[in-house]
C-alpha cells in the first residue's frame, strides 16, 4: 500500500515536472520544427518525439542548466531527421504553399509561387547537407542565434561556425539559382540552361 502510494507520488511528480517543461517549451519546439519541415504534421511528430524521449529518460534528464537550448536543438535535429527521411522516401509536403499564399497578399501570385518553391528547395537542400552544417544553419538563420552562441552550444570555435555558414550559404545559392533567376526575371535563363 505504502509502496503504491510512493509510486503514485513519483508518477505525479514526473507528470507535474514534465507538464511544466512542456507548457514552457512546447511552442518553441513546435515552431522550430515547423520552420524546418514546413509541415504541420511533421512539426507535431517532432514535438511528440522530443517530449516522449524526455518522458522515457525522465523529465529532468539531459536538460542541464538550459532546458530551452537543449529542447531547441533536439527539435531542430529531429526536424532535420524528418526532412532527411522524407528524401529517402521521396515524398515532399506541400503545406508551405498555403500559409504563404494566404498571409502575403501584397505579393503577386507568380512571386508567391516562386518563393514557395525556393523555400521548399532550401528545406530539401538542408536535408542533403551534413547534419552539423544543417543544424548550424538552422540555428543561425531560422532561430536567430548568434555565431558565438552557436559555437558555445556546439562546443566549437566561432571561426568554425563562420566557415560552416559561409559554405552552406554558397551551396544553397547554387540550389536556388534556377528558381531565383525565374523569380527575378522570368525571361532570363538560369543555371539549367
Amino acid at each position, binding site marked *: 500500500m505504502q509502496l503504491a502510494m510512493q509510486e503514485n507520488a513519483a508518477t505525479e511528480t514526473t507528470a507535474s515536472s514534465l507538464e511544466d517543461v512542456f507548457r514552457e517549451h512546447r511552442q518553441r519546439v513546435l515552431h522550430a520544427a515547423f520552420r524546418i519541415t514546413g509541415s504541420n504534421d511533421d512539426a507535431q511528430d517532432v514535438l511528440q518525439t522530443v517530449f516522449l524521449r524526455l518522458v522515457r529518460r525522465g523529465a529532468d534528464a539531459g536538460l542541464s542548466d538550459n532546458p530551452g537550448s537543449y529542447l531547441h536543438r533536439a527539435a531542430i535535429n529531429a526536424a532535420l531527421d524528418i526532412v532527411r527521411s522524407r528524401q529517402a522516401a521521396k515524398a515532399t509536403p506541400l503545406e508551405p504553399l498555403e500559409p504563404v*499564399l494566404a498571409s*502575403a497578399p501584397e505579393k503577386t501570385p507568380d512571386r508567391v509561387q516562386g518563393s514557395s518553391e525556393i523555400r521548399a528547395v532550401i528545406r530539401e537542400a538542408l536535408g542533403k547537407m551534413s547534419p552539423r552544417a544543417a543544424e548550424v544553419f538552422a540555428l543561425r538563420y531560422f532561430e536567430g542565434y548568434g555565431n558565438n552562441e552557436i559555437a558555445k552550444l556546439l562546443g566549437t570555435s566561432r571561426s568554425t561556425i563562420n566557415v560552416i555558414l559561409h559554405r552552406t550559404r554558397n551551396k544553397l545559392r547554387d540550389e536556388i539559382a534556377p528558381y531565383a533567376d525565374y523569380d527575378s526575371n522570368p525571361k532570363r*535563363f538560369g543555371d539549367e540552361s
Partner: protein
Amino acid sequence: MREKNLDRILDQAIDEIAQDRMAPAAEKTAVDQVWARLSQELVEDGPANQKILGHEDFEALIPAFVKGELSGAKAMLLQDHVGECVPCRRALKNARTGGGRKPVVAARAPRSAAAVWGWRVAAAAIVVVALIGLDIKTDLFTIQAEGLIQIERVQGKVFQVTDQGTEPIREGDELSFDQVQALRTGKDSNVMFRMSDDSFVEVDERTELTIYNKKKFWQRGRGDGLINLRRGSIIVEASPQGSGHLFVETADAEITVTGTVFAVNSGVKGSRVSVIEGSVEVDHGRKRDSLRPGEQTTTTRLLGHTTIEDEISWSRNKLRHLSLLAEATRVAREIELALDWPGLRYETTLLDLAPADTVVYIAIPNISEQIGEGYEMLQSKISENELLSNWWTDEMSGTEAETSIATFMEDLRAYGAAIGDEVVLALPQRNGEVSDPVIMAELRDPKGFSAMVQADMEEHGAKIMLIEGDTLVTQASSGYEMVLWVRGDILVAANDVERLAEIAVGLDAGRSAFHGSTFHSKLEQLYSDGAGWIIAADLSTLIPDDQQELETLGLAGLQHIIAERKVKGEQTENRLVVTFDQPREGLASWLAEPAPMGALDFVSGNASFAAAFLMRDPSLVVEELFAMAGSSAGSFGSGIEEFKAETGIDLQDDFLAALGGEFAIAFDGPIVPVPSWKLILEVYDSARLQATFEQMVDLINEQAAEAGIKGLEMREHGGRRNTFYEITSLDVGLSVHYTYVDGYMVAGSSIGLINRALANRRNGITLVNSGRFQRALPADAQVHFSAVVYQDLGSVLGPLARTLGAMTQNFSQDQQAILGQFAENVDPSVTVAYGELDRIVFVNTQQGGILSSTLGSFLRFNSLVGMQELLTHAAGELGG
C-alpha cells in the same frame, strides 16, 4: 550583379522561413494531441523508477523489442540508442538471429472514416432498404398547396393585381390566387413569401408572377405546385415535395424541382435558370437540361451565362446562403468521421438466387443504421450550432417536412434493422428489353419484418401482396403494385407472382441458372475481393450484335461494365472496370499497359492539375483515328504521301515515329496573369522532331507571306546544359517555349517555367513525390498506371482568391472568408487508369465523403464564382 541578386533572394527566402508560423488552430491541435499522448505514456509506464537511464536498461529491453512487445515509445528510444551504441547493436543482432521472429500483429479492422455515396444515392438506398416503403409511404411528403401564399417580408412597393386593379401588399398578408391574378414588385422593391407547401420564394424588383391553385396543380399531376413567372427574377427554396413536384413556368421554359434552391430570371431575351442546391430539370424548346449545383442554362442563344453570385446578388439572403452552406459542410464532415460505416461483404447468398437472365446487378449495403445515427448526430450538432440552429428554427421547425423526415427516419431504422447486410436488385432481360427489377434481401427478423409490412399496409392501404412461407401461392397478382415473398430468412420482391416463381426454382435448388455464367463469375470475384456498392451490367447481352458504330470503334468486344465503391481505410475508392471478351482493340487499345511515367517528373508538387497517359503507338493511333473518321487505312497512307509531296514532311517518319508513347499536360504554377501550362512528350528522336518543327515553321511562314501576315518566328537559345527553343506568333504575340531533356520534350508558357521544371526534377520536388499526390493514390497491387489525372484546385485557387481578394477594394471580408474555406473543402484527388490485356480499370479515391460532398459542391462552386469575381475586380483595379 547576379551573385548579389542570388544573395538577396536567398536572404528573403530564409527570412520567410524564419517567419513561418503554424496556424493557431493547427498548433492547438498538435499541442493537445501530443499532451494527451504524453499523459497516456506517463500513466501506462507509471513510476519514475521505470526510466531508462543507461546502457544496461536499454540492453534489457532488447528481448521484448525483438518479440514486438515493447511500447512504441520505448521501441523508439531503443532504436535511437542502438544507432549510437555498438554493444547494443550487436546484442540486438544476436537476439534477432538467435530466434524469435517478431510476431505479426493482427491488422486492426479498418474503421470507416469516409462515407459512402452521395446523399441522393443514399436516399435511394434508404427507399430500397426501408423496403418497398416506396409504395407504402407515398403520402408522407404530399403537399397541400392551396394556391395560398403568406407574405413574410416586403421592401418598397409590392402589389397584388386583381380584377379591381392593383392593391399594395403588406407583411403578414395572405394571398389566395383564386382572387389574385398576379403579384408584382416595383422599382427597388422586393418581397419574400412562403407557399402553403412551405416553399420559400424571394422576388426581385420589377417582377410579376402568379401561383396556380390546387385544382390546376392536379392537371399536372398529384400534389404539384406551379409558379408562373411572367417576368423578372426569383429565388426559390423549394421544400420537399414528397411524390409531387414544384414547377416554375416562364414564357419559354418549365423548371421541375423537388426540394432544392434555384434562381430563375426571365425577360424579353429568354430565361436563365441557375441551381444553387439540389437538382433541377429545365424543359425549353425541345431540350431538357438536368442541372446540378453551380450549373446554369439559358433558353436562347441571345442570353448569355453569368456567375451565380451575380444572378443572386440582389438577394437579401445571399451571404446567409453561403455562410450556412459553409457551416453545414463542416458539420457534415464531422458526422462523416464519427459514423462507423459497414465493412466489406465477402460472401452473399443473394447472387446465386438472381434470375438466370440477369443483365444488370446492383448490390447496396444496408446503411440504414448509419443514416439513422447520422440524422441523430445532425440534430445534436444543429442544436449546438447557433447559425444552423437558427436556420432549422426558421425553416424547418414545426413544418410538415420536419415531422415527415423524423417519421421517415424512424421507419428506416425499423425496416433496416430487420434486413440483412445488403439489398440486391437484379434486372433481367426479356424479349430484348431490360425488365423490372427483382429485389432480394436476407432478413434478420422475418417475423418482425412481415408484421411491419402488414401494419403499414393496413394503415396506408398500399396495394401490396405479402406471401409468407416456403410455398409460393400462385394466386393472381393483378391489381397489386408489388408482391413480397418472405421465405425463411429470404425476402424476394417483384411486380408479379410469375417472376417470383422463377426465383422459387433457384431457392429450391439452392442456386439459379444464373450461377456459372460469365457475368455471375465476375460478380462472384467482386465478393471474394470484398464488396461495397456494386453496379454491374452485362454489355455483351445488352448491346445488340449488329452495332456497326461499335465495330468501327473497335468496341464490339465489350463484355461487362462494373462500378464499385468501397471504403478502404481512410479512403473511399471508386472503381470502374470495363471488360472485353478478347484482347482490347480499336479505341480501347490506344491506352497502353501500365508502365513508369517519366513525364510526370517534370511536374512539380505545386501543380493544381495534371494529366498523363501512355499511348500504345502514336502512328497506329493516328491511322486508326483516320479510319474511324471514315477514311480507310489506304487513304490515310495516300493522304500522308500527298502531304509529303507538297511539303517535304513525312508525317509518319518525321513526326509520329519521333514520338514516344508518353504524354502529360499540367497547370503548374500561377494561373494569373498567364496560366502556367506545361506539355511533356516522350521523344525518341529529338533531332528529327526539331527538324520537322523547323520545316513546319518555314512552311507556315511561306503561306503567311502569301496571305500577307507575319507568321511565326523560331528562336534558339543555347545554354550550358540544354538548348531552348521559342516559337512566337508575330501576329498574335503568343509564344511557346520548349526544350529537349533526357528523351522528353518539355514545353511551357515561359522559359522560366521550363527552367523550374528541370530544377524541380533534379531536386526531386515532383508531383509524384509530393505528399498530397501520394496520399490520394489508390491502394492496390499495381506499381504503375496507364493514365493518371490529378487535381488539387483547392490548394491553389482558394489561397489565390484570398490573395486577390485582398488586392481589391470591392470584396467584403465576409465574402473573402467564405471563399477562404475553398481550400479546406476541396481535397486533392487522383484518378488512375490501368489498361490491361482485356480490360480497362479506372480507380478514383476520395478523402472526403458524401455528407459534405453535396453541400461542398455548392461551396466549391460558389468559391469559384467568387474567385472569378475577385479576378475581375483585381484585373480592373490593376489594369486601371
